[in-house]
């Protein structure tokens, strides 16, 4: 869908790890960094907690994109949670693309507690990308049909 979606404001669900990425997003907030208000943040204890079903469920409930963010490799509060997440997410992302979901919609990033600016950049990029490709309605639960 390469149509012009200038009015389209995507809904993006972001799963942020408690220790790094959520703190990073928080820092962006307290530093009054401006970034698109399209993300809805869900705090999880670790990026390794993000079950691929969460991503699927977000898309079913109408999210236009999903971001998973965790600590940089080596910095995981639980030592290795983000490494597991990385494997899992790489496969999930490829698979969704295989089904016909634009890879721009499903993103992963490492955002540390001090990277408020990086968080802003990630959100900006994802929002821009999704605005370009338009709404995601393929997996969406249809208006109950009767």
């Amino acid at each position, binding site marked *: 869908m390469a149509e012009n979606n200038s009015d389209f404001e995507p809904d993006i669900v972001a799963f942020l790890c408690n220790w790094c990425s959520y703190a990073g997003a928080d820092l962006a907030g307290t530093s009054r960094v401006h970034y698109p208000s399209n993300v809805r943040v869900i705090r999880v204890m670790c990026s390794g907690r993000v079950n691929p079903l969460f991503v699927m469920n977000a898309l079913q*409930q109408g999210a236009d994109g999903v971001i998973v963010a965790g600590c940089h490799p080596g910095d995981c509060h639980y030592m290795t949670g983000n490494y597991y997440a990385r494997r899992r997410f790489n496969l999930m992302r490829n698979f969704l693309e295989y089904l016909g979901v634009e890879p721009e919609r499903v993103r992963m990033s490492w955002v540390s507690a001090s990277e408020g600016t990086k968080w802003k950049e990630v959100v900006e990029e994802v929002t821009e990308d999704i605005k370009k490709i338009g709404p995601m309605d393929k997996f969406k*639960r249809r208006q*109950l*049909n*009767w």
Partner: protein
Amino acid sequence: MAVKKLSKEKIAEVLQELSKFRLIAPALSDDVVIFKEIQDPEEAYLDYGNSTVPPKKVVFPQTETLFRFQIGNPELTEKDVGEEGTTVIFGLRPCDARAMAIVDKLFRWDYDDPYYLKRRELVTLVGMACVEPPSINCFCTSVGGSPFGKEGLDLLLTDMGDEHYLVQALTEKGEKLQETLAPHLGDAGDKDESKVEELAKEAEGKILRSINPEGIPEKLPGLWDHGLWKEASASCLGCGICTFLCPTCHCFDIQDEVEESGEGRRARMWDSCMFSEYTVHASGHNPRPTRKERTRNRINHKYSYYPDRFDVIACVGCGRCINLCPVNIDILDILEQVVEA
């Protein structure tokens, strides 16, 4: 009742005419024959044996809303099935129509099921006689049906082997539909009806599999602890193929679904007695704990409980459960063992 003739060339015209109603006809999805709503006569696929999923799904959809609600608002809004409008199922096989007549009894038993019965009222069933048996495992003639069976149907089309279908109206509904189609129909010849009977006899002769069900309903209760159930179910995977694809299976689950907005519905959806959680109590206790009990219940339900209550075996011999069972569990094989036991 009136008998007419339809030239095969005019079948597209007839489908076009019928598409002013909600028209359900066999069509292809990739290589799979399914009954689906068609807009364009081109979509219909008439060179079919039978559909994989029986047309019961038209009157008893796999998932349907019972009522809607909004969390926080006490009002419940009943689903109006009438909105679906007059429906024609074109080309269903006599066994599947007969199955509907059998299931009607259950949905009318004591409490009328408003959703099912409303759909039944709205639907006209246009059958297509099985000149050739659709599958090797057809056994309709053993359980009271026939490849040319009329029970449950409103109109029956028979391929006369030449350039025509014979169109027999069987009910008032069928007669009405026949009138609607009158401009496309011609007059039947004197001998056409007797030819149909010949064709029917011939078709019955082509049914290869059979069982004599006499005595089975009475015998089954006594075989409760017989070893055959363990053996028959040993290879069962506990999937829903035999029940979901059965035209007489009618069991359902009821679930509530709520969106984030608080908008929700109570819906019912097909369920299968072969699923392990089908009978599980909230406490975790399961009165049918293994596949043995579940298989026994499936056969008993069709061949003992149902005839016990409604005087008819809840099996029309369409053969779907045999054709598609992943592990070749064969209902005739089981019934054979029942007879021999």
